[in-house]
């Protein structure tokens, strides 16, 4: 018996699902998953360099022209959201592929469409000079003084392709999951949910499958809104109609905020998929898990409005709904996830290699980033903090130390399982560098926000520059950690790629 097949047998005995299906039916999907993760995390590293450039500028160390700062800021924001979402969605496809029949062909096509979209965004910002921010909040994009309408339209076209790529992925994922479980009622364990756990006639989905179903519905809703939002924008550009600015803001934030939010929830799905493999204990689908994740279907689509508290024209009802939804979407899912993860880890004899360390780091980042978000979603706090560095602080926390850490951790897990080669010991140190560097870097955003340093400013006053200057050494520490993790993955990656064919075919 080869080591990989021995692992599969042990996993089977413990009620766990191995990464590679016993009949190797998901080999090709695992390859696409690896491609999504590598393209996504590779783009994340490049976008990170743009982030460093911005911090150097804000620290007054490497001053760039404001026009270029806003281009870089726009690309950094859009690129980060797109690349991280790509990485985690790929990981989740790999995680559910052993038990759900996904089409590698559809996933590859979705990747091409997604990448075409990102190429539009790169060209609109770097060549076309678009600097209206990744949120493309109307009417700024169509009234740029330093970029043309062509650049704004190219940016929107890029978002359209990204939305279509995500839509294709999500529709396919939902269809495959619903087929595997015999319908949406079973996929979302609705009978089990509404009977408070008493009705167990239907087989329950595994948590990653449930989460994949939940995020697919939200992706489909967000991507559809995003695509439909562009119709009036293009008609406005053609001079046919005028667009209501409040409608435009609501639509674009429903799309963009949900896209950004999705990353962390998809990333959490990767924790549910990988942690059982590290601890040797299956993650059960309990009533609390079903309730917390089913709630997200609705709540994730309603909390975006906390970005519009400052818009006096927004109806008060929506403002209140945003505050309630912001609490409700965050608390159940991360409380259930954290308690579940701790229960799984406690006295499990887990070996703290790079992959579980990254997952633990991700949970830590999710908690602190989420708390920062909940604070900012509280209306009186928001009035003071929303246009300060507090906002970048919270989303950098749940991205860099949350969703991104989940994606790196899951890639380490996949490469370990498929290549049958362990991560180097130095990678554990690299994770510490990642955590310390990331935390220090983000802490300076929080401190700056608490001291009312404004966000989205290209030029910082001398008294603000200290925060960015203190952050830069931490960025270097973070970069060293990420560089080592990348190297450790790169050296084993081809073995993992071949490993998708299964142990017998490898020999």
């Amino acid at each position, binding site marked *: 018996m080869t080591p990989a097949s021995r692992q599969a047998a042990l996993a089977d005995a413990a009620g766990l699902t191995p990464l590679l299906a016993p009949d190797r039916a998901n080999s090709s999907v695992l390859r696409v998953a690896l491609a999504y993760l590598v393209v996504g995390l590779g783009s994340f590293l490049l976008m990170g360099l743009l982030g460093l450039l911005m911090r150097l500028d804000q620290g007054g160390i490497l001053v760039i022209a404001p026009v270029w700062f806003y281009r870089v800021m726009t690309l950094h924001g859009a690129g980060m959201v797109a690349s991280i979402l790509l990485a985690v969605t790929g990981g989740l496809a790999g995680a559910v592929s052993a038990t759900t029949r996904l089409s*590698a062909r559809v996933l590859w096509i979705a990747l*091409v*469409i997604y990448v075409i979209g990102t*190429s539009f965004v790169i*060209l609109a910002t770097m060549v*076309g000079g678009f600097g209206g921010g990744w949120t493309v909040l109307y009417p700024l994009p169509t009234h740029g003084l330093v970029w*043309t309408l062509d*650049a704004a339209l190219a940016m929107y076209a890029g978002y359209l*392709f990204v939305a279509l790529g995500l839509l294709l992925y999500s529709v396919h994922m939902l269809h495959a999951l619903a087929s595997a479980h015999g319908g949406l009622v079973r996929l979302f364990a609705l009978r089990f949910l509404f009977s408070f756990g008493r009705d167990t006639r239907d087989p329950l989905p595994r948590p990653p499958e449930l989460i994949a179903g939940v995020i697919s519905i939200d992706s489909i809703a967000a991507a559809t809104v995003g695509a439909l939002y562009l119709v009036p924008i293009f008609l406005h550009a053609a001079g046919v109609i005028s667009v209501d600015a409040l409608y435009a803001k609501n639509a674009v934030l429903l799309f963009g905020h949900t896209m950004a939010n999705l990353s962390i929830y998809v990333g959490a799905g990767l924790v549910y998929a990988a942690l059982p493999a590290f601890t040797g204990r299956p993650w059960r689908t309990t009533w609390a898990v079903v309730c917390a994740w089913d709630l997200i279907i609705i709540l994730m689509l309603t909390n975006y409005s906390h970005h519009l508290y400052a818009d006096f024209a927004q109806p008060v009802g929506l403002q209140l709904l945003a505050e309630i939804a912001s609490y409700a979407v965050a608390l159940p899912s991360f409380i259930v996830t954290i308690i579940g993860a701790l229960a799984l880890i406690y006295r499990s004899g887990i070996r703290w290699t790079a992959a579980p360390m990254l997952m633990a780091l991700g949970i830590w980042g999710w908690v602190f980033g989420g708390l920062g978000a909940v604070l900012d979603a509280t209306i009186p706090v928001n009035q003071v903090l929303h246009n300060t560095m507090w906002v970048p602080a919270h989303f950098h926390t749940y991205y860099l130390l949350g969703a991104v850490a989940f994606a790196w951790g899951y890639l380490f897990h996949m490469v370990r399982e498929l290549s049958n080669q362990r991560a180097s010991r130095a990678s554990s140190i690299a994770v510490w560098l990642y955590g310390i560097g990331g935390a220090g870097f983000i802490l300076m955003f929080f401190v700056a926000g608490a001291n009312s340093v404004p966000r989205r400013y290209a030029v910082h006053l001398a008294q603000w520059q200290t925060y960015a200057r203190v952050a830069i050494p931490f960025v270097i520490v973070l970069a060293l950690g990420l560089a080592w993790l990348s190297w450790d993955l790169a050296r084993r990656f081809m073995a993992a790629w071949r490993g998708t064919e299964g142990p017998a075919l490898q020999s």
Partner: protein
Amino acid sequence: MGTVSVSFVWGWEWDPPFVAALVVAELVYVVLWARGGIVSRSLRLPPSRLTAFTAAMAIIAIALLSPIGVNGERLLSMHMVEHDLLIWVAAPLVLVGVAPMLDRAERFPAVVRKAPGYLGRPLVAWVTSTILLWVWHAPLAYEWTLADETVHHIEHLSFLGAYLLYWWPLIGSSREIDSLPTNGARVAYLVAGMMQSALLGALITFHQSVLYTAYLHVPGATPVSALANQRLAGALMWYPGAIIFTVAAVLVIRPPARLATRAA
């Protein structure tokens, strides 16, 4: 803004040698297609291949002889549509028709059968198509094509040739060399092809002055109208290219089982 006078739907150009060349190409293809069926059932190609080749000839005629081609000398945007049709529609359609014929024709000289396999290696094909697309759009070379009709023909021929090479690894069906045997490789190749043409399209779209000054001397043109038309031309290279590559992805990314069969 000035107004450039253009030919409308009835303004086709009559170019006897060129029309004859297209007709001969079509006839030769029809004969080979029909003979394939007569010689052996295994050599028979489906009517869809004949349709594809015929459509390619029609597209070439529309691109170069219709008002699209005629107006290309006055409007950069029309010239760009002409190029789009040649490289993104006609070239792949020619290959859909011809590639299986080359693959099956044992009697063709070895050099004819094997040439696409060597020239159409992904790196060679991508580099060749990229260099030709960019060089011909450099202002000096482009102005030359507007000034000299022969050079203009050479430009079109080289575009068609370069993009026959580009599409070959994806559409060519050689049994001997399958240079893009996995979907991952196909995706990377498609994205590389898309990126270089999108970059060129974006550079033309966002350029803030008129790149090809010959269009300033067209009767009725002004710097403003020429620049607006240049922006449109860049977008016509960029946006339809994105759609073409999306459609191409749907067509050339295959179920893994079919790829494995093909490689075997």
